[in-house]
């Protein structure tokens, strides 16, 4: 069992929307991946650039420092003051990685990297060719300022987001391009229906009016049954006709809201469908309270008509239909074919039919949904396959 809540319907079907979303998600992920890679590449190249800039300065410092070591070596032990410089700090280590002298702030030293940085220092290591004072390794340490990092991040965020935005816009454009043929075919169908319904009106009203005018007492039972069948057929077509005109001319029926006695309306519609229900030996059970609703009579008729005609159409022979009307609740239960869970969310899509053996365009429920949305009413469908379906409207 599952419940389907109102959502806006438009001319795209749910399955098409799904594949559209999939496309957009996939596309989005791809773009994010690409932007991420580009950012990573940029970040690394910025880091390299920073290091190579620093390396140039550091190697000058190292060169100067080695010259001073050479002098000190020469005058040792008369001179024992280790050369210091305000621009950098330094240390010398011998070939066995023993410290000879150090003024570094940072005590853990790496001998494997020529240049590396700790949290706040950059270390540069220079191997001496001549071991003045026994020094094989010279370390130069300067402060590691992270301004380049901030700059790099700024650029990444700025370019990354504008790039993502740009690609997303292109993605939306592409999606629209894909969707257009689907939309077009649905619109084409709409136009076609609009044109044909227009031509149906006169013949249909003439048939229904004439059937009502027939004096049924003066004809044989056999003919009476035939006329009943004609009436049923005509009414089925009439429901369809009304749905279609509602769809194509829906704006015309606006604004004529009035206080409507729902109980009377339902009874009227049940009577209207009586002959149809009789043909399938479906019986109605009504439990109706006096409830008024402020709305458009034509629209509410469409809702009730569609729900009742579905309940008949998808019912079994000798089935029942229970209609309950209470305060802010209208429920229609049928002992019919039911639906699978996964079918329920799709049933409000336009042109969707589950049972090809039954007639119709599959537009009835999409109209119901549309009208209910207008009145901020909720529709919930629960069903059990092969047993029953229950439609509940609350407002």
């Amino acid at each position: 069992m599952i419940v389907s809540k109102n959502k806006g319907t438009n001319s795209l079907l749910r399955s098409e929307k799904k594949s559209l979303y999939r496309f957009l998600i996939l596309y989005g992920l791809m773009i994010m991946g690409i932007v991420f890679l580009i950012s990573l590449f940029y970040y690394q190249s910025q880091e390299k650039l920073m290091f190579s800039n620093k390396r140039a300065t550091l190697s000058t410092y190292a060169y100067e420092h080695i010259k001073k070591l050479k002098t000190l070596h020469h005058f040792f032990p008369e001179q024992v003051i280790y050369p210091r410089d305000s621009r950098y700090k330094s240390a010398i280590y011998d070939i066995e990685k023993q410290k000879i002298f150090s003024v570094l702030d940072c005590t853990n030293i790496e001998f494997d990297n020529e240049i590396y940085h700790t949290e706040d220092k950059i270390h540069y290591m220079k191997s001496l060719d001549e071991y003045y004072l026994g020094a094989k390794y010279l370390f130069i340490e300067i402060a590691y300022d992270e301004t380049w990092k901030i700059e790099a991040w700024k650029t990444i965020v700025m370019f990354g987001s504008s790039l993502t935005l740009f690609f997303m816009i292109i993605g939306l454009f592409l999606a629209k391009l894909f969707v257009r043929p689907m939309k077009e075919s649905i619109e084409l169908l709409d136009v076609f229906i609009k044109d044909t319904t227009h031509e149906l009106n006169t013949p249909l009203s003439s048939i229904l009016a004439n059937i009502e005018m027939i004096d049924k007492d003066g004809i044989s039972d056999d003919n009476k049954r035939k006329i009943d069948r004609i009436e049923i057929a005509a009414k089925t077509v009439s429901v369809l006709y009304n749905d279609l005109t509602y769809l194509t001319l829906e704006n015309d029926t606006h604004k004529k809201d009035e206080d409507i006695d729902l109980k009377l309306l339902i009874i009227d519609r049940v009577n209207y469908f009586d002959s149809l229900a009789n043909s399938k030996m479906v019986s109605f059970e009504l439990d109706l309270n006096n409830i008024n609703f402020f709305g458009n009579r034509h629209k509410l008729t469409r809702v009730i008509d569609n729900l009742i005609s579905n309940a008949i159409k998808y019912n079994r022979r000798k089935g029942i239909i229970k209609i309950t009307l209470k305060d802010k609740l209208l429920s229609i239960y049928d002992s019919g074919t039911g639906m699978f869970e996964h079918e329920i969310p799709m049933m409000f899509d336009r042109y969707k039919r589950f049972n090809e053996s039954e007639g119709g365009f599959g537009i009835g429920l999409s109209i119901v949904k549309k009208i209910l949305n207008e009145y901020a009413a909720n529709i919930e469908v629960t069903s059990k396959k092969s047993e029953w379906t229950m439609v509940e409207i609350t407002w």
Partner: protein
Amino acid sequence: MVRFLLTIIWFSISLFANNSFDKNCIKCHAKLSSSPQDIMKYYLLTYSGEKNVKMGMDHYMKYPSRDISAMPEEFLSEYGVKKHQKISDRELNEAIDDFWIRYKVIGRLK
């Protein structure tokens, strides 16, 4: 006179000398133009670390040769390659250790 004094000094040193370097090496090296400190600096220049320096010295003591000397050319030509040392390995090692402790650079810079 100077010579006499030096001999006296050397004599007294060697009498009271309690380490191998003073006993075995100072007698010649006090007279050389390059002080032991200078020799140490040359050794550091070539060998850098403690073990390396000691190994180098040890080797040179046992197999002195012009080719492997850490000293500059002028120094060698002034004195010629020195003769093979005839002291025990243990004493040589001690002498070299003393040499290192006395003239090393580590711990003396400020």
